[in-house]
């Protein structure tokens, strides 16, 4: 690793950041989340905290811009330079800039968060099939109102799960119209516009629309989000591809690299390229905003480029699926700010106990004598859940694990719950892993605990989550997307928003209304290999993603090697 000359660093550990604007490529919530996770990469290993400001000057001002964006280092269009950041200090120092000519994704193709529909805001599933055709982008096929939509599972015909993709016909962002949709046609400087335009903007590279019929009168406007079929570069920036299109007499239903020597995918934006010569580059896998941001924030904290290729601070971008910080980066940041000791700092919470890690629990748990507790003699488990790809069976102060992917022959345990998670009581009613923060939530009676590694928060009352006093236990927890968790109790379930840490309005709902054919009061609910399992007494009911119960069996014989 390398630091900047003079080991430039912040003189305080409570760093603030502010997101000044957003890219049209990614939903705002996904962008916020990517930046928060990028900061957490560093705060996990060094005693820094990152607090987001919504106004005023923050230490790290984060923004998107294109080409000349107000500093001496212009960006260069798509690809090439992706972002840059300044070492710690006042003014522009510490700031991070991201090139908005890039296609910002989570690194693995288009990411579209849906709204409305019946998928509760889930991400589009690309590709998905609809009436025998495979779609890799949102489509207006099958609709007469021209609203782009996508399926949120692989097969719309089977699952019927869908939502609407970002569209100016549904909402805008930025501007001054509180996300109101565009009104077409609208009048601007006496001229009528029937689609979003860059006219009138100094930067000439952002599409906008009026949200009333007459901008000249009302001055209400918003930015249009690029459609995921919108092209970049070429001579039709921001226009959607026209499928099918004709090129050299051949008909194309998807973007192609034909005719190009550089292998990049392109598409025509009219029906016939040969006649109109209108084209642009299609969206590719894009660059992971999270990975690039984590790298740039490294600069903003005082790290220069590393010459270790696997390190985050290596100057070239490469996508990695399951990111973890390289030891070179850890050594660099800890050279500047030291090691993180003890639990993550959190705001004081009167009802909460924060415990320091116990050195004795950092080693791998040791199984106790199997004869102490025979898994095959347990008729009903307190809780069954999946944590970090392992299936956990909890019973009366003990637990067993097995890989969620392998067959049940690899069972390990029993282990004492108190050895691994010393703060927890004997009976665990439910547990789940927050897929974003990787924190573990444990429920027992009317209390819950949150573990991050070996540090924990709790016990807290489940009323803090917005559950009513009538709920005596939380019996099961089921992840829904990355930010929602369904909490089951008795005949009902609630949906917990992990960001706000409260259950949402419109709940509770009855289990039987959403999950037909399973026990009305399951003991455990968990997800395994794409199926949802409801268990009651010694039995389980397995539900497919399309909500069909396809198997009923014994926990002991099917999920355990008994």
């Amino acid at each position, binding site marked *: 690793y390398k630091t*900047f*000359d003079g080991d430039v660093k912040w003189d305080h550990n409570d760093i603030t950041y502010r997101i000044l604007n957003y890219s049209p490529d990614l939903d705002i919530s996904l962008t916020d989340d990517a930046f928060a996770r990028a900061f957490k990469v560093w705060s996990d290993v060094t005693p820094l905290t990152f607090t987001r400001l919504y106004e005023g000057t923050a230490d790290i001002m984060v923004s998107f811009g294109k080409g000349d964006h107000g500093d001496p*280092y212009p*960006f260069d*269009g798509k*690809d*090439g*330079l*992706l*972002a*840059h*950041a300044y070492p710690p200090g006042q003014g522009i120092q510490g700031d991070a800039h991201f*090139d908005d000519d890039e296609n910002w994704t989570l690194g693995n193709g288009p990411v579209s968060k849906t709204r409305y529909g019946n998928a509760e805001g889930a991400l589009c599933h690309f590709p998905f099939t609809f009436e025998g055709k495979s779609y890799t982008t949102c489509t207006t096929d099958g609709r007469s109102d021209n609203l782009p939509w996508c399926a949120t599972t692989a097969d719309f015909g089977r699952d019927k799960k869908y939502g609407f993709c970002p569209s100016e016909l549904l909402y805008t962002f930025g501007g001054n119209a509180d996300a109101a949709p565009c009104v077409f046609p609208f009048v601007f400087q006496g001229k009528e516009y029937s689609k979003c335009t860059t006219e009138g903007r100094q930067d000439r590279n952002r599409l906008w629309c009026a949200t009333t019929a007459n901008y000249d009168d009302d001055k209400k406007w918003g930015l249009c989000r690029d459609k995921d079929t919108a092209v970049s*570069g*070429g*001579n039709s920036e921001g226009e959607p591809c026209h499928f099918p299109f004709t090129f*050299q007499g051949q008909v194309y239903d998807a973007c192609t690299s*034909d*005719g*190009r*020597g550089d292998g990049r995918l*392109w598409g025509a934006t009219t029906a016939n390229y040969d006649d109109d*010569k209108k*084209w642009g580059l299609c969206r590719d896998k894009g*660059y992971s905003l999270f990975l*690039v941001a984590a*790298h*740039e924030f490294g*600069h903003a904290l005082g790290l*220069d*480029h590393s*010459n*270790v*290729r696997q390190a985050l601070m*290596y*100057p*070239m*971008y490469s996508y990695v699926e399951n990111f973890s910080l390289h030891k070179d980066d850890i050594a660099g940041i800890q050279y500047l700010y030291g090691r993180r000791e003890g639990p993550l700092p959190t705001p004081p919470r009167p009802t909460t106990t924060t415990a320091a890690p116990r050195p004795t629990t950092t080693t791998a748990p040791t199984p106790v004598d199997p004869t102490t507790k025979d898994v095959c003699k347990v008729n009903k488990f307190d809780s069954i859940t999946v944590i970090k790809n392992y299936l956990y069976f909890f019973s009366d102060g003990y637990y067993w694990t097995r890989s969620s992917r392998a067959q049940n022959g690899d069972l390990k345990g029993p282990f004492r719950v108190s050895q691994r998670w010393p703060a927890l009581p004997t009976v665990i009613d439910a547990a789940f892993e927050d897929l974003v923060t990787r924190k573990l939530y444990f429920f027992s009676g009317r209390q819950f605990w949150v573990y991050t590694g070996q540090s924990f928060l709790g016990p807290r009352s489940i009323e803090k989550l917005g559950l009513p006093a009538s709920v005596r236990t939380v019996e099961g927890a089921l992840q829904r997307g990355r930010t929602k968790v369904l909490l089951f109790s008795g005949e009902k379930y609630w949906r917990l928003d992990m960001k706000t840490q409260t259950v949402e309005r419109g709940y509770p709902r009855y289990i039987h209304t959403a999950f037909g054919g399973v026990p009305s009061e399951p003991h455990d609910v968990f997800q395994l290999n794409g199926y949802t399992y409801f268990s009651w007494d010694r039995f389980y009911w397995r539900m497919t993603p399309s909500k069909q119960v396809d198997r009923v069996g014994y926990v002991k014989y099917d999920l355990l090697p008994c």
Partner: protein
Amino acid sequence: WSLPLKSLHVIFPGDIIKNMTDMELAKSYLTKFGYMENLQRSGFQSIVSTTTALKKMQQRLGLEETGQLDPPTLEAMKQPRCGLPDVAN
């Protein structure tokens, strides 16, 4: 199926054709990311060569230090990357 494959290459209107030779690309890269500038500023302008800058870049990026614009070096120069210069100026 036995027809010969037709090679199709089109100059797209508005496409940014970077008619840069490999050496031009290399000099632009070495300058933009601080390798040339830094060496020139050190007062040894007369002996500064692309070879020296290339070696510095190869060393900095963990590549084999050949001082030549070899395929791995050229490939590295074409990769998407952070805009911060590798050598501070």
